[in-house]
């Protein structure tokens, strides 16, 4: 049940538990227990809302920052990653293969706020060798959802 349950709530975490049980062909109590177990195991880490901030009055700037770091003896990249992800403005930190080491996704209110973070906080960490900051200009698709368009049903209304 786990896999199918996760697939459903990944797309709709607000689904009613009774309905979820119907969709999965399971008992509601089993679904509740399974979710609780996955929360405890850290498989389900949270329930977020996908927001298109561009349609609100709230200004947000998102940046992807490539960071090259010097790994630390005995700890690899973990300790520097932790130093970085503790900042609340940091949304995500990924260890990446290829030309750089960490991908940091940062959300700020203004360009200045983001650049200040990079120049004053990120670059000044001992282990950080270099950074390259890319600002997101427009989001077309996020978390599997195409943000810009809503699809109409173009099928004939009744077909055999």
């Amino acid at each position, binding site marked *: 049940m786990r896999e199918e349950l996760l*697939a459903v709530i990944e797309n709709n975490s607000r689904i009613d538990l009774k309905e979820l049980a*119907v*969709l*999965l062909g399971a008992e509601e109590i089993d679904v509740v227990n399974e979710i609780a177990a996955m929360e405890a195991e850290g498989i389900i880490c949270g329930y977020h809302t996908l927001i298109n901030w561009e349609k609100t009055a709230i200004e947000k700037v998102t940046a992807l920052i490539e960071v090259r770091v010097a790994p630390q003896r005995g700890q690899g990249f973990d300790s520097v990653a932790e130093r970085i992800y503790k900042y609340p403005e940091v949304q995500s930190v990924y260890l990446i293969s290829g030309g750089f080491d960490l991908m940091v996704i940062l959300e700020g209110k203004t360009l200045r706020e983001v650049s200040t973070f990079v120049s004053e906080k990120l670059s000044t960490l001992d282990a950080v060798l270099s950074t390259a900051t890319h600002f997101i200009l427009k989001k077309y698709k996020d978390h599997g959802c195409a943000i810009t368009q809503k699809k109409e049903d173009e099928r*004939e*209304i*009744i*077909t*055999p």
Partner: protein
Amino acid sequence: MRNPLSDTVVGIKPSGIRKFFDIVSEMNDPDVVSLGVGEPDFDTPWHIRDEGIYSLEKGRTFYTSNSGLAELRQEICNYMHRKQGITYDAAHEVLITVGGSEAIDIGLRALINPGDEVLIPQPSYVSYEPCAILTGAQPVIINLKAENEFRLTAQELEAAITEKSKVLILPFPNNPTGAIMERKDLEAIAEVVLKHDLVVMSDEIYGELTYKGKHVSIASVPGMKERTILINGFSKAYAMTGWRLGYACGPANIIGQMTKIHQFAIMCAPTTSQYAAVEALRNGDDDIEQMRTAYNQRRRYLLNAFKEMGLECFEPYGAFYVFPCIKQFGMTSDEFASRFLEEEKVAVVPGTAFGDSGEGFLRISYAYSLEDLKIAIGRLERFVKKLREG
């Protein structure tokens, strides 16, 4: 001027679906919610579309061989072997057609001499009977029963057979009932088929959409491959209805004659679609699984909703239709569907559009998002309540 028309064609009843389609179209009301379609709501998976586009970019815009791209026929054989354990020879036992529909038409034309009887279980897809009539066959309808979950039983088949019986159409998983035939059911049918030396046309277009074990083809029952035209296609499994691509697998002598008709009437199936279909068969198993899971969730949702509102419905394990019984309201299917459309603006198809034995039932399609289904079911609940208080 003399009457320019063929008596045979004029004599064919117009499709019961068409009538409803016209009513809905005339209403032209944006508030109408339809549960009336017989095609997937999913788009064709992108990697399949991409191959179609790529083939156009490469200028693959010519006819293919009459029987279809060799590459595609080979992939179909691989698929049949992988899914059903049936071995077909790609060179002589596979024909690529314009949808499963063409295969039904030319398959019957290849088999029938005027006066031969074609056994057609109903409720079933609308084209078997007219296609049979066009060949000069005598259609013999077998009315399937709700108490058998709309499966065809050996007794029902036996009772319909005469010395003129030649072809049995086997439409499972079934549109409109959602019924399936499991291995034991098929073995019982196969026995009767062998006894009376019938040919089977097995329309398995919904074969990938079953929700109780894997689909079993009658062609995999011993002795049946030699006398079965297995029809399948890409429309339902891969959400490719508009690509118009299907196929028939069967004995070389039958496929050979079908290919002859196909060659004169059609030339070849659309080339772009054939290239896309190669990709579908090579890398589409996961897509099928994802869509199947979504359909299954909706199926459970609907069955539960019917149960809650006291609407009788056997559990269908195939296709993307449920077939609830509305006899408790003392109306015909047509009356129920017409009033439901008029009063609640939901379009469903009366069971009678698929044969007289569909009387008292409705075909409800779940090729819709859960959100859409919820809106429609909310209205159905209100309607049913009104009828009961009525």
